[in-house]
């Protein structure tokens, strides 16, 4: 299913609220697939506005978004943009099953009556098997755990065969095992040439699976490879006072690096700077080389 590399261009996009204030000012960045790119910024920094302009929900007052050179509207008609919503946005009491939700990814490819073809059914089964949710296909979506819920909506994006996949806070309410499973899946999709844009508070996991980062605070402060952009300086700039800093001295961290480290956290999972740049603090044991490996992969 590997096609020509996909390309997402956001050029000088400004978006205004109804009251005339700018939610986003002159935001620009380029991504081409496959990549996993983190979208990092405080609440109210314009992350969701940026998502909305990529999905064509808001019309920029200036600038434009193009996907493979085509306007967003055209890209949507081709079903190339897939969106995995936050858990809070979903009505979990709605009477639909796991398979029903995955099938919703196929609607754009169905006929006028939206009656699933054999291909649609195969794609849904493949997608659900890929996220290990096939055995739960007849469950009502409210009867799933947090991790399972997330995987159902990922399956929908897979069934849709989206090439630009937007994920909003994919790790909130998700157990560590599922988080790892999601990360593995995203890396497979990257290998297939997809552009994956992940909006996240989870700074600690960013260096582990994102090869690029877009830093945002009402505009794009910087974008590029994680190792260049996701630095302490830039993060302090992006988050201003909203980021908690913890400075641990030698005595507290002997077991780790034998020297000082600094912890930056915006949410539950902290970002730790140490000897080799970014380190995953809590799961570090036995995975000391993971960042080096990731770098070689991309």
């Amino acid at each position, binding site marked *: 299913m590997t096609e020509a590399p996909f390309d997402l261009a956001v050029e000088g996009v400004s978006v205004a609220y109804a009251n005339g204030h700018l939610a986003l000012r002159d935001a620009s960045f380029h991504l081409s697939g496959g990549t996993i790119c983190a979208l990092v910024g405080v609440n109210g920094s314009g992350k969701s506005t940026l998502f909305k302009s990529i999905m064509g929900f808001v019309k920029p007052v200036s600038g434009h978004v193009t996907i493979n050179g085509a306007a967003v509207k055209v890209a949507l008609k081709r079903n190339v943009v897939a969106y995995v919503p936050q858990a809070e946005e979903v009505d979990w009491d709605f009477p639909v099953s796991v398979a029903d939700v995955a099938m919703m990814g196929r609607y754009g490819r169905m006929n006028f009556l939206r009656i699933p073809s054999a291909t649609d059914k195969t794609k849904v089964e493949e997608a659900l098997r890929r996220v290990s949710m096939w055995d739960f296909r007849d469950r009502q979506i409210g009867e799933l755990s947090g*991790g399972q819920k997330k995987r159902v909506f990922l399956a929908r994006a897979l069934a849709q065969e989206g090439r630009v996949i937007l994920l909003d806070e994919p790790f909130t309410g998700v157990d560590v095992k599922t988080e790892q499973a999601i990360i593995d899946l995203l890396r497979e999709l990257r290998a297939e040439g997809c552009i994956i844009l992940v909006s996240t508070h989870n700074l600690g996991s960013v260096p582990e699976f994102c090869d690029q980062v877009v830093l945002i605070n009402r505009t794009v402060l910087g974008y590029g490879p994680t190792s260049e952009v996701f630095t302490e300086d830039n993060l302090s700039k992006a988050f201003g006072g909203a980021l908690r800093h913890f400075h641990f001295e030698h005595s507290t961290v002997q077991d780790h690096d034998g020297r000082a480290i600094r912890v930056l956290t915006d949410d539950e999972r902290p970002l730790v700077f140490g000897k080799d740049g970014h380190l995953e603090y809590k799961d570090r044991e036995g995975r000391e080389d993971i960042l080096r490996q990731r770098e070689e992969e991309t």
Partner: protein
Amino acid sequence: MIADLLTPFHYDYLLKAIWVSALVGGACGFLSAFVTLKGWSLMGDALSHAVVPGVAVSYILGLPFVLGAFVAALLASGAMVLVRARSRIREDATIGIVFTSFFALGLVLISRFPSKVDLKMILFGNILGISGSDVIQVAAISALTLLVLGLKWRDLMLVSFDPAQARTLGLPAAWLQWLLLALLSATAVAALQAVGACLVVAMLVTPGATAYLLTDRFGRLIWLSTAMGAFTSWLGAYLSYHFNGATGGCIVVLQTLLFLVAFTFAPKHGWLAARRRVKQDWTPPLDT
């Protein structure tokens, strides 16, 4: 005795009215699936009252009542949007103000021209007694609604469940929402003839709410609510012949009975099932 029970079936006009009533009930039942899940109950109530002045004007001028009802529904929706956008008043208050204003205007018009419009008919409906041309309008609206819903229910389900997904797939989400609202207005008008302005909201909510207690699948929910709407309306219209024409009352009482049965005995979401679960210290089937 038996001959008595069969009387309605010997009169063509009664038989026709009973079947038209079932058709209206089916259309309302189908739509009630969306109304309950979207939380549009108040909207349905509002529209059923807001069309009253339109219906009154149509009768006064001798026009098809559908025309006046349509214009009134349009004006009412417009007024709600306007008040909502231009003031700090909340949505439920806005709906409350607009629909009572329209309804009040309707009452004034009707009392001014008592010979042209029957207030009792508008408030309580009279499907067994309405004229031939009105029956045709009611039947046409209901059939059209059923047709549109039958063809596009999957799109409407997606828009109700996840409008963002509908839009990312390039579906005309806003247009589909309007379609649903238009169908709601249309069925409110049709149901007005069957059960009257006061009870329309029951037709647009109860079957869907009952079905929601009985199933976790949207497709099945639609079948159940449509079937319940049609069945209760058929039986209610038939029974009302023996009860001197309180058609609306009969239909809605039957719907309420079904709701109570589901509320108590529904296998999974019923009251008894919930109690059983507590007793057995039942835990939801969660796993990671």
